[in-house]
């Protein structure tokens, strides 16, 4: 029943269409059975919570006095526009995305391009070492960075002799974003290595220099991988989990908006308002995602796959 389409195609005009139909139905049923775990998970851990959050966001639901909960309409959303902390948290989340993701992408892409060169020696161990920081737990990074930037004993002050007033903690997000290049780097490296060598030879014959070759062959040919790692980096910059989870607790998320939602939730037990904030965040992230996917059709060269998409 796996190859129903191909296997039965010649028999389609046979006098037994009912058999064909039941086979298709059988296939759908079995397939559905395989999808069942995810479908249930989607229902209980995604769909229901998201809708429940929407429901909560129209109420003044508080953890400590659930019996007083009643419908308050859009008041929570209106509150958001008066809450300057929420506004600046959202702004912080978006700016972290706008600053960290391009940095990660450029560094990972440059590294991947260098790793494609035959000149580089010891690639295997280097690849692992560049990947290594991507699996370090967030809490360990926090410990390392606070030690490193300590005014008295930290290396940054002792080696670089910075003045104590320098806001060293601003380095923390930069280092963190550089330390998450691992998955994107590997994915792009794989794609760049898979580019057929003949293309480069042809371009060389046509007189294209290395920079020209990179921009007109390597980048377009590996654009699906670039897009994939862009999406992954975007998700993790908003505090989501994509491929690798560093294990930020909610209150220490890199995304200030997420921390603020948690703060509203656990410090004030203000579940209604927290849900409204979460929905605002959700809409913003979804908007950015849709923009990214829309833009993909202008710069991502997907391989000829969509034609046989029918499974």
């Amino acid at each position, binding site marked *: 029943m*796996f*190859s129903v389409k191909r296997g039965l195609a010649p028999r389609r005009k046979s006098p037994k269409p009912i058999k064909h139909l039941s086979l298709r139905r059988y296939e759908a049923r079995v397939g559905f059975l395989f999808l069942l775990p995810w479908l249930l998970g989607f229902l209980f851990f995604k769909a229901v919570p998201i809708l429940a959050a929407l429901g909560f966001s129209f109420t003044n639901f508080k953890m400590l006095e659930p019996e007083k909960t009643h419908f308050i309409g859009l008041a929570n959303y209106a509150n958001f526009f008066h809450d300057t902390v929420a506004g600046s948290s959202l702004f912080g989340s978006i700016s972290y995305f706008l600053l960290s993701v391009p940095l990660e992408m450029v560094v990972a892409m440059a590294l991947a391009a260098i790793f494609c060169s035959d000149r580089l020696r010891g690639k295997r161990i280097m690849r692992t070492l560049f990947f290594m920081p991507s699996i370090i*737990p967030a809490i360990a990074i926090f410990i390392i960075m606070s030690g490193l930037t300590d005014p008295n004993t930290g290396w940054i002050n002792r080696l670089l002799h910075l003045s104590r007033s320098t806001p060293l903690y601003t380095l923390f997000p930069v280092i963190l974003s550089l330390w998450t290049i691992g998955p994107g780097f*590997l994915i792009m490296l794989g794609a760049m290595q898979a580019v057929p060598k003949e293309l480069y030879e042809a371009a060389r014959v046509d007189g294209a220099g290395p920079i020209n070759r990179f921009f007109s062959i390597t980048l377009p040919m590996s654009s699906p991988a670039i897009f994939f790692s862009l999406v992954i980096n975007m998700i993790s910059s908003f505090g989501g989990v994509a491929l690798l989870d560093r294990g930020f607790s909610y209150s220490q998320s890199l995304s200030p908006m997420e921390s603020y939602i948690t703060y509203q939730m656990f410090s004030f037990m203000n579940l209604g308002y927290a849900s409204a904030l979460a929905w605002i965040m959700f809409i913003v992230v979804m908007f950015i995602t849709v923009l990214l996917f829309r833009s993909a059709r202008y710069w991502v060269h997907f391989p000829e796959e969509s034609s046989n998409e029918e499974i």
Partner: protein
Amino acid sequence: MKKSKNPRRNSSSTLTLRLWEFTGTASLTLFIWIFLIIFLSPLTYMVVTSLRSADEFRERTAPLYPAERLTYVYNGKTYQLYKVPTEDGVVHDWALVKPGLTSSLFIDPAHPENGLIDWKGSWRSLSGVYRFRIYWNNYINIWNAVDYPRFLKNTLFVVILGEIGVLCSSIAVAYGFSRFRIPGGRFLFFLLIATIVIPDSITLVPSFVIFSRVLPWNGTFYPLIVPAFFGSAIYIFLLRQNFRSIPRDLDEAAMLDGAGPLRTLVSIIIPQSIPAIVTVALLHFFNAWNELRMASLYLGTRPDLQTMAFTGQAFTTYGFTPEVLQTSAVLLMAVPLVVLFLSQRFFMQDMVVTGIEK
């Protein structure tokens, strides 16, 4: 590469070419290694600091590497060594016997028979004499003070059960998506991709209400383990891409032999995609090891159930000195790093392969 193409090239130009290639290789490799050293310097700081003792930290002049202060025993008393410059321009390693404001008494350990030397100047401006020495006691002390075996056991319990759940369900679902024609299958797949992008904070409030109010799961491992049994969208996506690259002829052959769908999955698909499955297993291992969101929400009231990541967080909330904190960080990341290095060949290779298709 070019020299093999032109073996009859005259020797001097071959030499130039070789020299040129060597320079290119050396400079590129050197550049990347220097970048790597800077890139990983925070980790170096962590390891080095964890090997120093608390006393060294208080000394302003202590070197950055793990070192011990040299001392000299004179007349039954222990004195610390200092680097003392004298008028003839030589710097002596002398022991400070009697510190004074404008002049101090020193003893030369090399020639104690010369007796005490009076040196003019402020001894506070002198720096100490250090010798490289690794101090392991931070590790011993932390290991004795914190019940690591129990945290390790908790973490492994969560990781292994979650691993079983996430692998079984993700493989099954990926198989369903890659091999069956299901009405609305494309829409479901679109939903799957969409769930990868959804930020966690949107489901935070309701799932907290579900796990702690509707279900009596607060203070248990269930919220950490049960969701894994429903598959993980990104793993399903990766496995589905991999399963699709397996030729269908193999399935058909198995089917002709009378194998059912489950049998085909176990005997054809899984053996063909072991590398991808191992990659997913490793990804889940790292994620589950580092996981702190669920753990901090639901295990906060149960110190006996806490995981490794939690111990790290506990260390940051008490005011420990740098060397203790860095030691705890090393212990926290030791296991994932060992796993990464043991599996690097496999893992790295397959991350690359899995990522290509999109």
